[in-house]
């Protein structure tokens, strides 16, 4: 396991390479590693976080999960970055979105490298997916998926 400084650097590089985030965006934020989550916070919060110990339930927004097999972007983090994301976006039509949310996966070959992707709908980033061998898997968390399903009939 790399130390926290190099792991944060790895997270930044991952987002730059995989999702096309600009290097300069990190000037506005800090990534703090805690409880297997990389939290995206504003720099002003930094001092407090060290004083508060492990009493905080949440720091800024959860940006990545640190899994044994590597970095997994969160849907919250991808939605937050929104229009800053320029690469590996899979834009979904309504039927694909419906299928993905109901069945958890949809088939369809795309010119995208294996890995996590940003799901797009109507020009907006709506969460995280995983693409491999022509299959796109939903990675939007259950509660968010449920609330998105509830508004599907209103989407055009």
């Amino acid at each position, binding site marked *: 396991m790399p130390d926290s400084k190099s792991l944060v650097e790895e997270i930044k590089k991952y987002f730059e390479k995989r999702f096309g985030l600009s290097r300069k965006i990190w000037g506005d*934020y800090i990534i703090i590693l805690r409880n297997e989550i990389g939290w*995206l*916070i*504003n720099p*002003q*919060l930094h*001092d*407090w*976080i060290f*004083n*508060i110990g492990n*009493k*905080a*339930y*949440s*720091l*800024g*927004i*959860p940006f990545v999960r640190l899994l044994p097999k590597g970095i997994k972007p969160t849907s*919250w983090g991808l*939605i*937050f970055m*929104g229009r800053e994301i320029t690469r590996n976006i899979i834009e979904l039509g309504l039927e694909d979105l419906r299928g993905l949310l109901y069945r958890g996966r949809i088939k369809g070959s795309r010119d995208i490298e294996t890995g996590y992707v940003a799901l797009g*709908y*109507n020009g*907006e980033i*709506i969460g995280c997916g995983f693409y491999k061998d022509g299959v796109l898997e939903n990675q939007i968390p259950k*509660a968010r998926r449920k*609330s*998105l399903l*509830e*508004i599907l009939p*209103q*989407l055009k």
Partner: protein
Amino acid sequence: MERYRQIISDWDKFSYYCSQPLPKTLRVNTLKVSLDMMEKYFKKLGWSFKRFDFCLWGYEVQTGDEISRTLEHWLGYYYIQEATSFISVLALQPQPGEKILDLCAAPGGKTTFIAQIVNNKASIWANDIGFRRIRALMANIYRMGAVSVIVTGYNGLSFPQKFKFDKVLLDAPCSGEGNMRKDPRRVKGAELGFINNISGLQKGLIQRAIDVLNPGGILVYSTCTLAPEENEMVIDYVLRKRKVKVEDIDLNIPHSQGITEWNGEKFHPDLTKTMRIYPHHLNSGGGYIARLKKFG
């Protein structure tokens, strides 16, 4: 509500508005979207809209749609928020660089509004108790993109005094009488026994809120109830218990002054600087706001 007839000068108007449905109101989240862009979305959705007179980010919208059921709401482009609940945050006047505590923060409408006003450039601490409340609070913070907020679950009565803040918002748990337009069961008013009980909790919370303020710091106390026992009597109590003074609220908003007498009991004359919001003032629910400054 009948017991408030003596303090509400325009009783007929008050009664009329209490019986009307609440307008649909929301706050555009400029952390995620510009006002221009959101107005374009409103038009695309076929909603007509009117900006609040007193707040740039507040809108009343007219539509038959359920305004919580849109992709824009799901993405955090707006927060469904009643006009009254804007006021306590505006009265706090949060500034970039400040340390700000929202002591009873769930579900997060006011916390995320503070983050928006300072453009995520302050240190904001949102606290509440209870797993479900905290879960809702966190979900709203993430949805609105408030990266300047940390969340804790301390009991507000024993919030650690080692942490000090420039500003504290105490939107206290209350009997909720001001929500009579959302919940018609509240029109008859809350039980006095409940009001007296919760008033004790409010007095405890406000003392702790002041104890964690830096000298010169600002506390905004607010409720969504009309009961003087939960409003002026709490402020009158703390003026005697802690070194604080009541400040004017520098907002141009229709309101009634706080009262200085209730059921024969007289309060500090500065309570006229506090605000009572009745449904007819803003076509909203009801509430109460006081701004205090700590000295010494």
